[in-house]
């Protein structure tokens, strides 16, 4: 490893410092400080409305923040325009509701970004796209439209679409919450293997099995604050805060 790479791996890949965000009068993020190292997998957990989605959306600036700094690879997120678009292409996002492009085939969904943003030739983008679809186990669905796929297949296609941009970090906002129970594992399996391969990930999920298997760190949020950070083992067996204990007792009952 060159010295240049060595210094780069020391600095966090994603760094949030003193981030505050309001929607009107409602403060949704309160003094968020969070460093995410290259290759780290973070699971964000917390009650509904605690600001988990907003945190994710701020990292690729689908939402702006009023105070604080967010850096990717040491660089402040650009305000808007082409620079912001370029930044977003390096931060993948997987949504709860998949959001596959409804008028495009699965393969076209996966190749749109590489062709339009990275200016990759169509044939090359398609070849790589098919490999990605194979990797997430839906190669035979390439020429279908999103509505023809099951929820689990759609979400895996959405992961392939994000991977096609070769992002530095992948954000997942409750990727399995809209899925029927029998499809949850096929998506979590793909995510687990990504984590094993060293992808940097921020995952909002209540799937404790995934957190235990794949996460380096659990971040517990409540009312817009990061209340607790710990390894999955520590967090689930021995939470410190009363709010985390209370929350865990609720999600453990079912």
């Amino acid at each position, binding site marked *: 490893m060159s010295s240049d790479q060595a210094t780069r791996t020391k600095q966090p890949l994603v760094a949030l410092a003193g981030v505050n965000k309001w929607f009107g009068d409602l403060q949704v993020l309160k003094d968020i400080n969070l460093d995410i190292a290259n290759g780290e997998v973070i699971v964000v957990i917390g009650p509904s409305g605690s600001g988990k989605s907003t945190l994710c959306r701020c990292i690729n600036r689908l939402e702006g923040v009023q105070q604080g700094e967010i850096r990717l690879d040491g660089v402040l997120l650009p305000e808007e*325009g082409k620079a912001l*678009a*370029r930044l977003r292409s390096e931060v993948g996002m997987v949504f709860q*509701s998949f959001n596959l492009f409804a*008028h495009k085939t699965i393969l076209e969904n996966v190749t749109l*970004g590489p062709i339009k943003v990275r200016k990759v030739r169509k044939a090359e983008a398609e070849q790589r796209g098919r490999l990605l679809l194979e990797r997430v186990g839906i190669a035979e669905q390439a020429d279908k439209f999103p*509505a023809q796929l099951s929820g689990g297949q759609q979400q895996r296609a959405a992961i392939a679409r994000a991977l096609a941009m070769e992002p530095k970090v992948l954000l997942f906002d409750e990727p399995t919450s809209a899925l029927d129970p029998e499809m949850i594992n096929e998506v979590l399996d793909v995510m687990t293997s990504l984590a094993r391969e060293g992808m940097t990930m921020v995952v909002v999920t209540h799937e404790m099995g995934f957190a235990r298997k794949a996460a380096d760190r659990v971040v517990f949020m409540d009312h817009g604050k990061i209340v607790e950070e710990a390894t999955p083992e520590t967090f689930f067996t021995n939470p410190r805060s009363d709010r985390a204990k209370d929350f865990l007792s609720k999600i453990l009952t079912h």
Partner: protein
Amino acid sequence: MQALLDNLDRLWAGFLTTLAMSVAAAVAATILGTILAAFRVSPLPPLRALGATYVQLVRNTPLTAVFFIVIFGLPAVDVTFQNFFIAAIVALSVYTAAFVCEVVRSGINSVSTGQAEAARAIGLTFGQSLRDVVLPQAFRSVVPPLGNLWIALVKNSAIAGGGFAVADIAQLAPSLARDNPAQVLAIFGGIALAYMVITVPSGIAVGVIERRTAILR
């Protein structure tokens, strides 16, 4: 009836003029209206204001007044057109674009916000996400109302011949009627029929386009 048959060559020429004027204006109005709709949803406030002002001004002006402004008003500020035919296409396009804008904008609003967010999340710029993701879906959902506008435009084009010396099919009606007062009903009926030769197949074509482009959801 005989008056129509005796003037088939003039009818045919007028029909072609109406058809050419309508097709050119429909294409121009659809393009201009789509650009205006993009302005109206743009992140840049001046563009939004421009789009909104255009729609308010044009939508609330009678089409005949738009014709007067284009044909007699603009030359006063040194904007002139080669002939009345071109000027009529401009007037029809400018007028219809305001309505196209609003139809396309409602189409854009019918596309779920998740689509545009996913587009931005893979790094598409606002313009790219509009062109490659949002507009293709927006158009599919507004084919029927857009078709209505195209059909209305064909009929609105009659103002060009009726009032502004364009030799379209509408201009033929009064002159044929003057020369053949006994056949007035047949003449006007025949002219109306000629419009239907354009509008009815247009309506059918719109239905076909709607079915062909429907998106599975």
